[in-house]
């Protein structure tokens, strides 16, 4: 019996290795890395001591100039990189204990390779500065990304209501 189990385990290990080595490379790796860089930048922003102007430049690089953001639930649509950056700057004092994390990132690349549709869950962890209490929020988003000058930028953000009303 142990011999049979060993053979089965070896076969599974060989199959897993073959799958790992032979599966096609992740065509959305660059998009994924870009989104991770955005999350890292937001999370780092509370501790790196960068000023608002430097932060704006950093943040602006992630968004297309004509970016559209629709947060749904009665929120007014946001248009343009400058508006997004302005809102982020106004939020800055309140984001001192704010972390963002992207989960379940699904990427559909356009055949041209110039645009990509992303579907993900964003987790927002907020820590109350006074009480230290943490709250976790999560929302589903679809994000349209576009490659501009070799760099991926966010062109559209739409919040998705997981539970339809």
């Amino acid at each position, binding site marked *: 019996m*142990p011999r049979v*189990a*060993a053979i089965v*385990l070896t076969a*599974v290990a060989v199959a897993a290795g073959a799958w790992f080595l032979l599966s096609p490379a992740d065509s959305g790796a660059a998009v994924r890395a870009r989104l991770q860089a955005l999350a890292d930048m937001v999370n780092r922003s509370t501790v790196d001591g960068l000023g608002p102007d430097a932060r704006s430049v950093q943040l602006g690089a992630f968004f297309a100039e004509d970016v559209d953001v629709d947060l749904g639930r009665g929120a007014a649509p946001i248009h343009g990189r400058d508006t997004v950056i302005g809102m982020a700057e106004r939020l800055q004092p309140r984001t001192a204990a704010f972390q963002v994390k992207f*989960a*379940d*990132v*699904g990427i559909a690349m356009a055949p041209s390779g110039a645009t990509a549709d992303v*579907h*993900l*869950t964003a*987790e927002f962890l907020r820590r109350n500065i006074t009480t230290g209490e943490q*709250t*976790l929020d*999560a*929302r*589903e*988003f679809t994000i349209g990304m576009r490659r501009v000058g070799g760099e991926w930028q966010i062109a559209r953000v739409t919040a998705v*209501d*997981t*539970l*339809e*009303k």
Partner: protein
Amino acid sequence: MSVIRRFVFGENPRRTVVRVLVLAAISFITFRWVLIPIRTEGGSMLPTYAPDKLHFVNRLAYGASGPVRGDVVAIQMAGPHVVYVKRIVGLPGERVAVEGGQVQINGTALPEPYVHNRRSWELEEVTLGAREYFVIGDNRSISDFGRTPASKILGKVVF
């Protein structure tokens, strides 16, 4: 040294290693694809499920038949790693409304002994689609609610 080795690996080290590997493989498969561990956040399912507690979702619970009313289910967002935990109150094809905080199914009040912090709110009647369920959290003072397609139900929260 041999005593320690015997204590760790047993009388037959090769067999012990195989057993450990088999157990690891079974655990990996079980907790990745069958019984998914989740940690609850927030109090939308109070008092049934308290925040910051570990629970498990049985992904095979609805293999043969769909969810039934009263089941607590995990509803995936973009994927299975972040889920809503809600209770099913409306089944496919039913008419669901909320009048004064009381859920009405096809015009009849639904008995809900599990409800916590019932508050007065209204929801205009909606008719669920053929593969659609209506879900709400037990803590009605803060819980989100709405319709979800069967395809987004990850499984049944079992314990």
